[in-house]
């Protein structure tokens, strides 16, 4: 007996199941896209490339609050294979009543690691006293214009500073949610001396030098500090900023690939990509009972038609298989609709500025794994619900 061409399931009734499946898919997709987006955004915060290495404070509980000796940048830059270095002092602060992150940098060095496009005004220089450049997203959010003066209030320290907006930049990265200022401004707001920064990033040639080789150099410096050079031989930033050589213990300093460094912070709290994916799947599984009830309701609603088919010789197995064949395309459509709706919802809430963690927009990308997982979970769930149902 063939039932494929026989339309005994009413579309209006199937729509309810489709609605539940759409919402379950949407819930899973929103959860997975946003959680994995957060994970990706956080781990890529200091650069995704394998050739970006960071010197950081091992004791620090967050990547934004550590302190390492700034002079290590000069020492490590002399190592063969180190192409560029960037001293960075990251600080949370309040501007126009809103929370933002400000990064104190040496602009000339920073540009070698993160090229910026200035869309308004001009590029920042280390000698630009009382100046700041603002990321596009921050400028839009706080309605900041070029040449505007802003009062920056400290969070970690009891400091305040008036800065003029020299320019607005775009980087197509998380930095668009930040503001950049000369290194010493970051150090003032961080409450540290001129000898320390939050972290130092290096661009390296991996065929010549590795992070472990850099760590060895740092260890050497910790045990036998190199003699200080004369001020006349110093680079530009050291002519502007006082030279402070701070002693340190090697146990307090770590050297790691930038992405691994950020990942290690999340790992400390048990937040891994796999854990977030499992959490998203758990959210989907928690909605399975609703889907099962919806599947059973469809069968209950078609009890009459099923009884007729049973009385004319259709076996339970045949009926279950036929219902499944008829419902699977609906399930896949519902699943796709759920993914599309999730993308629309996330785009809207991101556009409204609601999708933020630590004042940084959470980027979300269409991850084929999430979409595939969505289809697999929905198909499996519908199959189990229909095949496991009692047609009596």
């Amino acid at each position, binding site marked *: 007996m063939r039932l494929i061409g026989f339309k005994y399931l009413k579309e209006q009734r199937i729509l*309810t199941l489709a609605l*539940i499946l759409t*919402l*379950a898919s*949407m*819930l899973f997709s*929103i*959860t997975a896209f*946003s959680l994995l987006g957060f994970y990706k955004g956080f781990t890529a915060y200091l650069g995704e490339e394998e050739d970006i290495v960071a010197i950081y404070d091992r004791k620090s509980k967050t990547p934004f609050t550590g302190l390492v000796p700034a002079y290590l940048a000069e020492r490590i830059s002399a190592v063969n294979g180190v192409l560029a270095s960037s001293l960075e002092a990251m600080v*949370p*602060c*309040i501007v126009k009543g*809103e*929370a933002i992150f400000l990064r104190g940098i040496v602009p000339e060095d920073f540009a070698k690691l993160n090229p910026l496009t200035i869309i308004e005004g001009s590029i920042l220089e280390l*000698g630009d*006293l*009382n100046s700041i450049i603002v990321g596009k997203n921050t400028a839009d959010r706080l309605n900041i214009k070029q040449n505007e*003066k*802003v*009062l920056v*209030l*400290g*969070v970690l*320290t*009891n*400091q*305040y*500073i*008036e800065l003029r907006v020299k320019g607005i930049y775009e980087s197509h990265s998380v930095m668009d949610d930040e503001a950049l200022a000369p290194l010493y*401004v970051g*150090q*003032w707001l961080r409450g*540290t*001396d001129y000898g320390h920064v939050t972290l130092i990033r290096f661009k390296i040639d991996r065929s010549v030098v590795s992070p472990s080789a850099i760590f060895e150099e740092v260890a050497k410096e910790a045990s036998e500090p190199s003699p200080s050079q004369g001020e006349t031989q110093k680079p530009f930033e050291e002519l*502007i*900023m*006082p030279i402070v050589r701070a002693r340190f213990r090697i146990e307090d300093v770590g050297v790691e690939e930038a992405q691994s460094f950020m990942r290690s912070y999340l790992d*400390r709290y*048990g937040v891994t990509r796999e854990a977030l994916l499992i959490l998203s799947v758990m*959210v989907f599984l*928690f*909605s*399975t*009972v*609703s889907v*099962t*009830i*919806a599947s*059973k*309701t469809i069968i*209950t609603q078609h009890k*009459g038609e099923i009884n*007729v088919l049973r009385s004319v010789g259709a076996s339970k197995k045949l009926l279950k298989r036929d219902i499944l064949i008829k419902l699977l395309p609906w399930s896949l459509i519902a699943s796709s609709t759920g993914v599309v709706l999730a993308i629309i*919802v996330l785009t809207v*809430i991101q556009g409204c500025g*609601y999708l*933020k*963690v*630590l*004042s940084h927009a959470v980027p979300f990308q269409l991850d084929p794994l999430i979409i595939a997982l969505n289809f697999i979970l929905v198909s499996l769930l519908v199959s189990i619900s229909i095949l496991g149902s009692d047609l009596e």
Partner: protein
Amino acid sequence: MLFRKGGTASAILAIALLVAILASMNAIVNHINLQTEALRGLLNIGGTYLILSGNSTYITDSKIGADLANQISNTTYIKNVLPQKVLTANITTKSRNNIIKIRAVEDVKIFLKLRKAYVNGTTAKSKTEANIGEILARVVAINLQDELNLTIGDNILKVKVVGIFRTQTEIDADLIVPMEASNKLTKDSGWISLIEFALKENINSEDTLNRITQQLPKDVKIVKTQQLKEFMQEMSMQTLTFLNTWSLTIYAMVAAASHIIATRLTTESRYELTMLKAIGAKKKHIFTLVLTYTAAIAILGSILGIALGIAGAQTASTILRWIWPSIEITPFLEVGQALQTLLLTLASSILGCTYPAFRSTHTRYMEQPL
């Protein structure tokens, strides 16, 4: 009668599991927010405040009466009152011209002492002397004993750098002069830009600030320089905003699930509902019956879900602590949140079941196919 139907348990479970997702997420976010709050206690919060003009958004935009500083100084519960005039001026040295920030204070020595400055040289005592911050000195290449011409509009003042200081604060980029020097440059001694002050130890800052605000003219405002609390609140708000937006999908799921539950009930109970009609039940009775059934399922599901959510989150955190002993997560749910979840679930459920309940009032047993 309806509660004895086979699908009731699974209906309660369906709602409960959806609510459990919400409850567990809320419980974890509560823990994160509590940790963020606790961070505040680890930091030494400075008690420095600024008095600025009410309509100003930045310091050089602010103008307040110079006599206000005397009024504030007489207040017993505040200390370190520092009236300051902040100006933008052009400086001319032998070799170059630059635009810099000048900060005029009553007593340069006291001001630098309060900023814990290290001074190379002496402190400015007259209107012809100035102290320069280390960063500014390096950027504009000024040395000790250099003479500078300060220009604001048509007014020019010649000063000698008597000291270079380092405070590792924002004034390292300023030129500090006595107030009389700035009055000479602006030809106006009637205003200042800001008054910096700190509260004395062991006093209730909120009460004191309210008292100070009452004493001040209406056109000035007080700004706290360290905004840790505000920053933390905004961080928590960002997480909560996303969580609330995300939970809308869960409530939509609850509404859809309730629609299914009510549909299933009316389909499976056609005979009973028709019997009730036959013995005199009106449409509104049938409608109320279906609505009450779904609402009861929603309430029971919510209570079970909240319990499951909290228990699940706590179990997961205990397991995590076994695996990684350094991780300490203590999820919790506030009574208000639990009540809000219960009410929103109930509202979503009623919304979802209204249409099937309405349809049930128009369905007859005869209409059932076969």
